[in-house]
């Protein structure tokens, strides 16, 4: 089953580092699977951890949050706050039964186009292994 299964992944990228790194992967014409779709935010600190729960509800099979390496944040501290919040959120959703491969976080700087390609590859593989997300997905439950 997971061979044909193409996971749908929602990614939150910070504008200054990860989004720029993803753009760089584009300008250098690297290739990676199309399963991942990006929502741009100004800083990984803006990503409300409940977005991840909401994304899993609204049809995402995997979620990625990517920001600047610690110390590089354009706003100095946003990624530090994100790291603490998502450390907690990851523990919580795995505790209720979300497979570990579904939620991922990464540091990708504006100059790491190649790393972005690897990160996308890894996230897609993990989501494919975890299979379609059914646990608490909104799926017209007893409509």
């Amino acid at each position, binding site marked *: 089953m997971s061979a044909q299964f193409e996971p749908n992944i929602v990614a939150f990228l910070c504008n200054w580092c990860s989004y720029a790194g993803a753009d760089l992967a584009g300008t250098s014409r690297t290739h990676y699977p199309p399963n991942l779709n990006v929502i741009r935010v100004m800083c990984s600190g803006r990503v409300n951890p409940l977005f991840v729960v909401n994304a899993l509800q609204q049809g995402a099979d995997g979620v990625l949050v990517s920001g600047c390496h610690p110390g590089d944040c354009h706003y100095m501290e946003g990624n530090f706050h994100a790291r*603490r919040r998502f450390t*907690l959120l990851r523990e919580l959703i795995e505790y209720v039964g979300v497979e570990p491969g579904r939620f991922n976080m990464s540091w990708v700087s504006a100059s790491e186009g190649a790393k972005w390609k690897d990160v996308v590859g890894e996230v897609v593989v993990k989501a494919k292994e975890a299979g379609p997300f059914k646990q*608490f997905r909104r*799926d017209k439950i007893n409509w």
Partner: protein
Amino acid sequence: MVDVEKLKKIARETISRDDVRCLIGWRQGSYGFRAAPHFVGKPEEADQLIFSPLCSHNLATYLTLAEKLPVPRGQEPDTRKVALLVKGCDSRAVVQQLVEQGIRRENVLVIGCPCRGVVDQKKVEAKYPDMGAAVTADWGEKTVIFNLPSGRVEAPREEVLAGKCMTCRYPNPLLADIEAGDAVAVWGSDEYTDVREMEAGDPRQRWLFWEEKFSSCIRCYSCRNVCPMCYCEDCILDRLNPGWVWRSANTSENTAFQLARAFHLAGRCIECGECERVCPVDIPLMKLNRKLTKEVREKFAFEPGTDPESKPLQASYRPDDKADFIL
């Protein structure tokens, strides 16, 4: 131990002060093993105050629950203090509310009641079904004494006390303007066995467990309204724009609701166990919240409600926060 007569005297003196608006304590309930929050406005009303193993309510929630009515023109808002009886766990709620400026120190007067554990309603009602009219209770050596209609009985505390009391490390209030009794021994110890046992399973088993629990939730929001830390003026769950969580009661929305609440309590839950106590459909909410209190203790060496000077966990960071899962 807390001598109830001394407590009543303290209460009478406190409520007579003109800078105290009301005093909140407990009184005997209207049936069985129940106690009820008791709002003392006048000294004579203090006579009904009790302090016994039935006093499971965390009264700190009333500090932030009370609505602020519009002040009629020309009148001054009533800034008199609210006096509050607090057990050990309750006092942590007051401390955490102070840390988050949910309340101001000058508006609350804390009366500390060292506590030797409160009963779990379900355990007691199962053990003594023929409860009938109000049953008073008291602490024995390592037991709890109940005065049933059929006579006095004594049960070992492990059989009747709430789960949170078995793992309680703070029976003595951490913050008190007035001490209503001298400190008691700490006998609980917390290895988070309930959490570790759940962590041991694989994701599929865990989801089967939580799916059954969350799908039975009827969204009465009593777990949110009883919680001393849930005091948002306008909770995101009640909002339509943006509609974070839909109002229909099904597995998806209920899970999103419970995850949102558990996450909003990360680094804030002081494990008073009220959410689990009040849940009408008995969802093991402490088993959910304690996962995060364990993580917060292990990963950030942080215990909410223990240090009035601390910064809230989710509003601070350390450059060397450990996070090994980041790609």
